[in-house]
């Protein structure tokens, strides 16, 4: 089953989008989460992805997915599919 992906947009400082649009080197603030799966949404909250938290893209898996992000002083790997469900605003 192939997932259709939106074209990634390059976001500038102050612009809003989804975590998937964030580039390496940029920092973003989380605005909210709208995952279809209640369990996954809960897990993302539990791992610290809540409103206001700052996120950076750290490492990208050699095959392009998943992505390793940095938040709250640790590193978390998540799939692009779930990154599409995280609303952000670029702050740096």
């Amino acid at each position, binding site marked *: 089953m192939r997932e259709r992906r939106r074209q990634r947009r390059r976001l500038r400082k102050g612009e809003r989008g989804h975590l998937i649009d964030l580039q390496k080197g940029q920092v973003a603030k989380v605005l909210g989460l709208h995952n279809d799966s209640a369990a996954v949404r809960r897990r993302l909250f539990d791992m610290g992805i809540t409103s206001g938290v700052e996120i950076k893209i750290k490492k990208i898996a*050699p095959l392009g997915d*998943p992505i390793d992000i940095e938040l709250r002083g640790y590193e978390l790997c998540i799939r692009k599919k*779930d990154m599409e469900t995280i609303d952000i605003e670029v702050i740096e």
Partner: protein
Amino acid sequence: MRIALVGNQNSGKTSLFNALTGAHQKVGNWPGVTIERKEGRIKGSKHTLIDLPGIYSLSPYSPEEEVSRQYAVEEKPDIIINIIDVTSLERSLYLTTQLLELDCKVIIALNMSDLLDKKGIKIDSKALEEALHTTVVEVSALKGTGIDKLIKIINENQVLDNVHLPIYATDIEKSIKKIEAELEGSHQRFVAVKLLERDPRYQKSATDLDQQLIKEIEEKYGLDTEEIIANQRYDFITELRKKVCTFGPRKVTITDRLDKVFLNKFAALPIFAAIMFLIYFLAVGVVGSATVGWIEELMEGLSEWVSGALENGGASEWSISLVVDGVIAGVGAILSFVPQLIILFLCICLLETTGYMSRITFFLDRLFRKIGLSGKALIPFIVGTGCSVPGVMAARAIENAEEKKMTVILTPFIPCSAKLPIIALFAGHFFGPNSGIVSASLYFFAVIVIILLAYLLRKFVFKGENSSYISELPEYKLPNFKYLFRDVSEKTLAFIKRAGTIILLCSIVIWVLLSFNWKFEYGVEVADSILASIGNALAWLFYPMIGHWSWEATVSAVQGLVAKEQVVSSMAIIAGLSEDVTEGHLILAEGGAFGYFNSVSAYAFMVFNLFSAPCFGALGAMKRELGGTKAMLKAAFFQTGIAWVLAILVFLVGSLLTGGF
């Protein structure tokens, strides 16, 4: 007292458990090492310590995490030791705020405190203690600091009372109080928060008042309560963290630099393949061929010496045969592979403790998702190269039920250490200098089969949704040599112990079945023995893959059910007893019982033994994880069927290629 050890995955729980109890437990640097809860006694006291699987929250995500939630909430330990990795304080304190909602005393153990200076982190544990009103101790499970203090606090029960400090906004706290007032029994604050969050586990006891309060709050915030609670929890923690902890300037860490190589776009996969190849090449190729010669001589010398000694002592012919042809041949055949196994165990332990294993799951996730598995399935597979039993059990960390089942069924396909003797025996004999390459090729063969089967299983049997992959990426850690030594020696000793128990027993049974016929007359030709007639009844199954009517190979392969290394042991006994002139232990010698094997049938026979149903131990683990005997039997028949077909294919194709027909 019962004391539960609760903490995030990879926070050092296993290490702290070992430090507190002195027990030897497996340590690994990937999320989720503690598979089942383990109990021990705290050094110098009567208190029981229970080690629970790592969790990030009391709303469990995987079946493994449910074990911890249930214990912490329902079995009411006297004290909870909440172990925290100080280097990820914020995420760790999230669980702490939840534990503090339970009616239970909580001690916070700030672990990895030895890393604070190195990372330029300063932490004020007194301030943390005051802010949370709970006892805080700095420890390092690795270096052993703070452990005595922790034990002293437990023994003298100097733990601060848990007073349920408010952490949410006033309106939320008010609602919690209102719900609490309606509740009876224990953990009222915890249950009230759960009701407010609409936790499905507590929905049955939800009242109209709860619904009313939830509605009011949600309208006010414009978010659902689950998100509000999570947000406010983390807001509280962020403020707290700012008060008690300061970071130095961020540096590029060694982990970042290593990941530039190990997670490099182009190099990651080749490096991984090279590492796995190297492990097998080292174990079977280099070490195997270096030791096999002198071990054979040693065994020969031993059996000569023993039979000489027994003869001089006036032992009867049959008892000498039992000892030499049964016990020494059978058990010795297994023990001669110990050097290879030590290397294998060492390599796996290195993969686990350094943090490389987590990287593998990270970069192979994409590939695995294509075939319907999560990258996390890789941990069971790699642990399975040591032994299928913990491998199958490690599948419990996979949250998606169908992915977990698939992983359980596929894990035994990985050549485990007990299958190594089979590989080493055949590869060493038929492929000589290339034995390392041939062994590695079997490993990659297994990987390909797993990928194909996973794809097919996903397509036709387990058609459910794919899960997500949300996992922490731990930092690289230098292996701790004490643990390395312990882990390898424990596994090696367990293997030797099995040789001295199960294999010994089987060797004796096999010797009896080979030395007697159905009329229980001793000293018959092996071809007329009980075992031969059993084997002959089933030999048709193996004829198509070895091209020879062989009761010997048949009975040996069937014994793989008891323990895979028993295949080799049985072959050794049969070969020894069949030889006219008893000399040497060369199982596959030309003209001997297995002399008809050639490189093609050897490869096919190895394939069958690798892929067919695993040993009883692993079948037991499969039964537990699949949830029943029927599901387990189905899986075992599936595995054996696949093995049979593949072995025949290998034999046919191989024979065609080498012109063997």
